[in-house]
Every structure is written in C-alpha cells, then in structure tokens.
C-alpha cells in the first residue's frame, strides 16, 4: 500500500548539522529492565491413577508410635 509522507527540505530548522545534533541528542538512555517471557500454557490437568486411588483408599495404614 502506498502512502504519502511529507518531507520538509526547505525548513530553516533543517540544516544537516542540526539534523545530526537532533539525532544524537535524542538517543534512548541505557537503563535496561528485564522483561521475562511469561508462560501462557494451560494448567496441567490433575492426573488420576486408579491404582494410586485404590492404595490410598484401601491400602494398609501405617501408624508411627512415638
């Protein structure tokens, strides 16, 4: 897609050295802040094991005597 952009070659503010000064003066400061990538994964569904359920429900109960 074509667009129209506007240049201002004759504007008094735009001598070459002023452009260069502007570019130098406006460089972003170096002040890093980490931005770790977040996880968007679905939660793991709770896994169900019939054997584990059986052992929990009906397995031998151990009692510890103090």
């Amino acid at each position, binding site marked *: 897609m074509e*667009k*129209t*952009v*506007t240049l201002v070659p004759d504007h008094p503010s735009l001598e070459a050295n002023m452009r260069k000064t502007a570019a130098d003066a406006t460089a972003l400061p*170096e002040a890093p802040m980490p931005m770790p990538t*977040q996880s*968007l994964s679905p*939660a793991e569904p709770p896994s169900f094991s019939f054997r584990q359920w059986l052992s929990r429900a009906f397995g031998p109960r151990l009692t510890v005597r103090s």
Partner: protein
Amino acid sequence: MAQPRIWAPIDGAILRTLPEHAGNGTEPAGVIALRALGVIMAVLAGGMAALLFVQYAALIRLSEWFWLAAALLAVSTAWLAWGAFLGTLGLAPLRQKSAEAEIITARTVVLVPICNEDALDTFARVAAMRRQLAGAPAQIDFAILSDTGSAIGAQAEEDALALLLAETGSTGSKVYYRRRTQNTGRKAGNIAEFISRSGAAWDFALVLDADSLMEATTVLTMIRRMQASPNLTLLQSLPRVVRARSLFGRAMQFAAAFHGPVFTRGLARLQGRTGPYWGHNALVRIRAFADSCGLPELPGRAPAGGHILSHDYVEAALLARAGWTVRVDPDLGGSYEEGPENILAHARRDRRWCQGNLQHARLLRTEGLRLWSRAIFVQGILSYLSSGFWATFLIAATLAGLWQTAPDYFPGVVAIYHERLGFLPVLPIDASGRAFGLFLGIVGLLILPKLLVLLEAILTGRARAHGGTGASLASVLSELLLSAMLAPVLMAYQVRALVQVLSGQDGGWPPNARGEGQLTLRESWAASWFITLTGAAGLAFSATMVPQQLPWLLPVLLPMLLAPVLIAWTSKPARLRTVYATPEESDQPAILELHDTILSRWRQHAVPVRAAAVA
C-alpha cells in the same frame, strides 16, 4: 488495616464499589454478585428468546432446522442482553473519588509507538503535548518508538523530529527517538524492546497511539492516581473520538461520546481489580509491566499462532494474574483519538481485531488467569462470533421455512365430531403474537439501553453539550436508523473476517489508513460486490422459495444489496452539523487547537512524496 468502602446508591439499590486494597487477590463480593447477575439475566433472555422461537416454529410447522435457529438465537440474544445490562448498569454516576497524590515524584515517559504514520501529524501531536506539559511539576519525557520500514518514511520522521525539537526547545522534558529496522512483535515488541533497553530510567509509561492526544491536566491526574495507589499498575482512560468529518465517522464519534461514557461506567462497575486495557491512552507502572507482560509467540503459524495481535487484553490479564489492579476510570476527560472515516477503513481495522480476539481462544485455559480475565477473552471472541451466529440463524430460519409442512385440518387423533355437522376441522393457532413478541424483545434489547442513555443525558444536562434535548433526540434516533441500515453490511465484513481467520488466512497488521475519507462508488463496489451479490441471491431465493419470510428478511437483504451505495454515501462529509454534535466540536479542546496550529505551521514547508508503506 481495614480499607475504606465507598457506597454508590442507584435508585434505592446499594452497590459496594471497589475498596482500594493491595494485593490480597480477591474481588469484592458486590462485584462478583453483579457479574453473576449479568450472566444470569443474559442466559434468561437467551432462553426466553429461544423458547418463544421454538413455540412459534412448532405452531407454524417449520422443519427441524428451527432447532439450530433457536440455539443460535439463544446465544445471540444472550449477547445482546449482556450489552443491555452493561448499559443499564452505567446509568447512575460513579460516586467514588479516586485517591490522588499531592506531590508527583514518579518519573514518567510518554511512549508513542509509530509505524509508517504521517510523521508531521504525529510529531506535531508530541509537540503540542510537550508544550502543554512545560512547567508541569513532574518529570515527563517523550519517547517516539518507530517501526517505520521505508527509508523515505524514516527521513520524514527525522525531519519532523528536528521540527519538534526546534518547536518546543528546552522545556525541561526530554524527547527520545528510536527506530527499529526489524519490527519484531509489532507494537507489543516495540514497547518491550524499549522497556528492556531503557525502562529502568522511568517509573511510569503513558502509552499512546500515533493519533492520540491527551490534555496535560489529564496526564498529571493519571500520574497522581497511580502514585497514590501502590497496587494500581494500569490506569486506562476513555479516549474520545474527535475530528470525524464523514457521516459514518461522525455517527461513530457521536455514539462513542454519547453512549460510551455510560457503557464504560457499567464496565467500571464490573471490573473489580481486573479492568480493561485498550492498548493506548493508558498509564502503566513500568516495573510491574516488565515483570508480568513479556509475551511469548504462540506455537504454530498465524492466524492462530505467532505474535499475539491483540496484546492489550493479554497484558491486562497477565497483570491481574500477578495480583496487580487494572482499572478504567471513566471520569478522566481530556483523552482523545481519531476513528475511521468510512466503512472500509473500519472493516480493515476490524479484520485485525477479529484475528486478535479469536487468537485469544488459545489462551482461555492459560494457567493462573482470573476467571474475569477469561470472561473478557470470551466477550471479545463472542463480539465477532455473534455476527456468524446471526448470519447462520438467518440461513437456518430460512431453511426451516423452506420445508414448512402444510396444516393438517383433520388430524385423526384430535378430530372434533359434532352431532349435526360431522367432523369439524382443527384450525391452526395464530403464532404471529409470539413472532411479534420475539421481534419486539430483540429490538428492545438493542434500542432500549440507548433510549435510557438519552434520558440520562437529558436529566443530567449532558445533552446540552450535544446540542440540547431536541438535537440529542434527533442524533440518537438518526444513529439508530443508520446503525440498522449498516448492520447487515458490517455483519457481512465480520463474517468474511471470521471465515478468513478460521480458514487460516493471516491478515497481519496492515498500515492504518488515518485520515482516509471519501470513497467513490467504484471503490465501494470493488470492496463490497460480494455483499451485493449475497443480498441479491438472498432476495431472489426468499421471494421465490419462502415468500412468507420475505418481510422479516428485507431489513437485512436490502442494505446488503445496496452496500456499495451505503459505503460511498456514508463516506461523504456530513453537512448537517446540528446532528451528531459532540462537545469537542462545539468547544474544541485546547490540546487539539494547539496541535492544529503547530501542524499547519509545519505544513507550510512540507513537500509530499509518495512512498511505499511497509507494515
């Protein structure tokens, strides 16, 4: 320490509004109750609509397609009812006052991410805001973050930057400019790169779009509110659409200005700690944003995979997941943006939003998200699927009528025997009452909230800013009529977008066509011939095969048939200024005037050059 509760009476019903609290992760009970009430009312409305339709369909013996039509009608009506609930909820003013810090100590940077924009226009906005903020009791810098791909576009930006620096001189605030040669991650990636490289230099960032403008007082108010609330990490203002010229643009602008504040108040009552983020005209706490909002690429290719297009909703959800508060404050004025001037520009933007919202379907099961964040994703998805539901409902209802069975006047089981007259016929029960009731109910859900907003505007005096009671009434009725005419055309574009996205076509992020205005009939035809053909085919089919349903289908099929005419007509300048009047038209805000002044002075030396815009 107990937090203060603020009460907002609404016509005798007492609502608990959000108490400001830090990080205990719970939503107020009143907010949860309101949300549940809205869902229940929406489900009831959808159920009643489906029941009425099923009764109507059974009485007039429609074929089994009516079951599909009923299911779709239930979902679509529930969606309409949810919107009506939002509007009704926002009728009463919010009475709580947000806390504001007296002295601003936070350092703020105004971020202006741009990509192939009109450099003079964009930089003139920055100049206007910088000029207004001169002397403000706060450190507020500006960072223009460019993703412009073309060399000539970059040259234009450098020229405009020099003008900006010369215009505003040394005002105390600094202006930074950075251009990326690779626009990785598009806008979200642009901001992420800034934060990773330079974010620690500031505390807050005011995120703008290229067409955003904000009054200095609004910017300072937002900074004060965020500074006063340690758990508040994203504060969204309600941008007002300004500078519309066409009939379509002014109608949208009026609807946003007249109805928008009320619906946003309704949204604010439901937001709890999990408010919306619309990607611009919002203040963020940089540290929290950096900790919580690093977005990954989704597995797979676009449109379902790749970079997250509608990143703002996801960022808000991630902030809420981390325990922060995201909030919209509808009382913040002085926040402006520009909108599309014609239906084609609107449809192009909507195509991107459709893809972005449908992409959120992959995030519904993301671990740790708040239930309300998931509900917001669902609302965004439904806002586009609903067009598909309506279209499919129309088709299913038409097919149901196609195989409508003839009445059986002498059903063997229930034939009535009269001693003298013999067997009497069983006449069909008149079902028109149910059909009419259903029609009235759906129209009521669409229209009644807007009429209530009109009543609110008249009673509160807000209508004065829109030309007075008479002009407001004319504007509301005119906007309703125009919306009814354009709805089938917009539905067709949305259905096309849905089909494209669901069939795997990536629409990407096309350059914004800001300021694009009048369209010729040829241009409109080129973009909408498929709608006209669909309307013509539908009319021919209905008239010949299901003539009894034609009156119900005409309000949809006629606008589709006339789509090119409607698109061209609504793109023309709106000459009658008393209709669709907004406060910003009658009393132009200072920031807009300042922008106009600066831009017109710069343009005196401008040389237009055609350049390829690289998205």
